[in-house]
């Protein structure tokens, strides 16, 4: 007796690793939302307010990019990252853009394969101590216990600084700013070191801010800026020129309040191109023609962003210093928009 046999066909599915490496710009547009890596909470730079809305100097840059790409500054999802997790988050594609007080270094450009597309804050590393410690210079910190955030450049600068000055210290490694503050206020460390802007932001949230001093030494250069993945040049250009648009706006006196008025009345050719009145510069970036106008309308120019979040008069009270426009003796300088 012959049995009829049915053989199920084994479909050997060859699973090719589907690498959807389309440009980030297309991804963001398709998603209708920008995912921005931000600080876990650094008042003035990136922190959620009492209502859960993110606000700050870095956060506003994310909003400006969202306004330029999607035409709506509210279409941003903020992903809080620590000093340790931020680069992995960007590398793995969890975030499109990282704006989180990150220092531009050669290693991060080359070995970590990132692109720092601009410097939105020129900073340097400093020390904060309690006033009653009686210390007036970082070089007097021999034998001190120092709180330091892990995964940062400040960790390496600190080791270098103490070695160069031939003095010793005891490091206490902490995960983020809030933990550092807790340890510092409890007296578990004599000094807290991070970027001077970060120290000022921390101090602003302390209940007894007047009892803490930031020492005069600035022991490193810390150019902080937005970061994108290496190799996605178009996306990098979008972020860079959104930032430049804010700088040019300040230079030309365009604010969030008068941007529409200026667009209608200006006779400056660069402003016309920037605001999309003439030419198709926006389209060349893969954006709408009024993209940069939207960015400026959403958050204001660089000066407005600075003054609103961290400038003099806010609790953080930072002077423009190096971050003044080049026309006012600072380092903030945008390439020409043409």
């Amino acid at each position, binding site marked *: 007796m012959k049995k009829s046999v049915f053989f199920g066909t084994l479909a050997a599915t060859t699973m090719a*690793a589907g690498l959807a490496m389309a440009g980030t710009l297309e991804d963001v547009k398709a998603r209708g939302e920008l995912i921005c890596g931000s600080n876990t909470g650094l008042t003035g730079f990136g922190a959620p307010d009492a209502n859960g809305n993110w606000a700050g100097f870095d956060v506003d840059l994310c909003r400006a990019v969202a306004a330029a790409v999607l035409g709506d500054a509210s279409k941003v999802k903020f992903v809080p990252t620590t000093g340790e997790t931020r680069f992995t988050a960007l590398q793995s594609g969890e975030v499109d853009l990282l704006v989180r007080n990150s220092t531009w270094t050669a290693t991060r450009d080359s070995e970590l394969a990132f692109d720092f597309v601009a410097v939105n804050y020129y900073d340097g590393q400093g020390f904060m101590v309690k006033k009653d410690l009686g210390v007036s210079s970082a070089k007097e910190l021999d034998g001190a216990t120092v709180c330091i955030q892990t995964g940062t450049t400040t960790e*390496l600068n*600190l080791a270098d600084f103490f070695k160069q000055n031939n003095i010793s210290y005891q490091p206490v490694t902490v995960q983020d700013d809030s933990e550092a503050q807790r340890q510092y206020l409890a007296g578990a460390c004599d000094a807290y070191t991070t970027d001077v802007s970060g120290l000022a932001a921390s101090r602003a949230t302390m209940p007894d801010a007047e009892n803490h001093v930031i020492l005069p030494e600035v022991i490193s250069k810390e150019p902080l800026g937005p970061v994108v993945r290496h190799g996605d040049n178009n996306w990098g250009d979008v972020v860079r020129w959104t930032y430049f648009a804010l700088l040019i706006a300040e230079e030309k006196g365009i604010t969030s309040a008068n941007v529409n008025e200026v667009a209608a009345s200006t006779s400056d050719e660069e402003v016309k191109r920037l605001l999309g009145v003439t030419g198709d510069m926006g389209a060349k970036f893969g954006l709408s023609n009024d993209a940069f106008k939207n960015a400026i309308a959403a958050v204001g120019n660089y000066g407005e962003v600075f003054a609103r979040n961290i400038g003099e008069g806010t609790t953080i009270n930072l002077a423009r210093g190096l971050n003044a426009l080049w026309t006012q003796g600072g380092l903030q300088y945008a390439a020409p928009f043409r």
Partner: protein
Amino acid sequence: MAMATDAPKETFRLSMLVYDTRYRSYTIQIVVLLLFAMAVAWLLNNTVENLAVRGKEFNFAFLWQRAGYDIGQQLIPYTNDDTHFRALLVGLVNTLVVAFWGCVFATILGVIIGVLRLSNNWLIGRLMTVYVEVFRNVPLLLWILLSYVILSETTPQPRDFRVTDEMIAAGEEPKASMILFDTVAVTNRGTNIPAPLFDRSLGSIQIGFLPVSLNLLAFIVVIIASVWANRRLLAHAKAVQEATGDRPVTWWKSLLILFGPVIALKFALGLHLEIPELKGFNFQGGILVAHSFTALLIALSLYTAAFIAEIVRAGILAISRGQTEAAFALGLRPNRTMSLIILPQALRVIIPPLISQFLNLTKNTSLGIAVSYLDLRGTLGGITLNQTGRELECMLLMMLIYLSISLMISAVMNIYNKSVQLKAR
């Protein structure tokens, strides 16, 4: 006419692979194996391709680059000029130290609590029940954070120990003072304990990456030799007693043998203690045991002890009541019954689950990251990973190291387990 008929020759048909039970299991196994191999190949391929897309290559050369960062608690010499590999070793030693002492304390505590929980004393039994239930039902991370916060928030700052001229003039006492005859200072940063120093040091030798102090080695050798000599003495006394009925007087000889050589060695090497002293911001001299270490050790020991206590209790309960009754009938007192009859038998039941508790404790040391204890997770998996951006390599290496440690612990414990099992003769 009779014809010899051969058994019908069965020809192999493909369908038998599915319908014949003799072959079916092979078919299934081969298919599953193929699928598994494909899954592994896909994962590997995915990794390689993604690394290529990100422009990253897979290599461990970064381990030999300068680390550039400092580590607070180090048991082997390390400076920021050393390599990442050296930093890894510093972290590894920190992990092993906390794991070792954690296992020791957890076992001691666990055995005591386990035995006491079976106590006939109602209060003690209930108290131990409460201990076990509280410690094993709250996450370990919370215990670590709690002990750390208690240690760092309730202790004084180093400057509270300072005595200034004005304070002496005003007759004021400092806010805090050292304990144990002014030798130990507990600050909110750590515990400063005296360090042993030698005037005529023997130096140290390097075994692998670990420097071993010859002084310590000398002490260990002398102590072991003394104990051995004392045992010989007692054995001799016993032999004399059995032969003649008279036990020779040994107590002063024992004392001399046990303590004489150690004291002689102490003076020969010029051992003295270096007492920590407040200088500048911190106590200098002595050894600083950071609170992160103490907190981690306390939490790990207390937490794991709760589990070990249950294992010990189960082991004791597994021994039949008749054993106890028989021992009592022979006139053994309860504590002798426990140590001579019950525990040796209970060990057979206790050891296997105890191994997994030791493994758990060792792996749980990685939670030290919550209190900034720079163990293997903190150095290799934390700072090195971050500064070099070698996530895959660091993670794989770290997994490999934890795996090796665990396998070693379980190998050693399995050997011990064999030695306490019933011998079939």
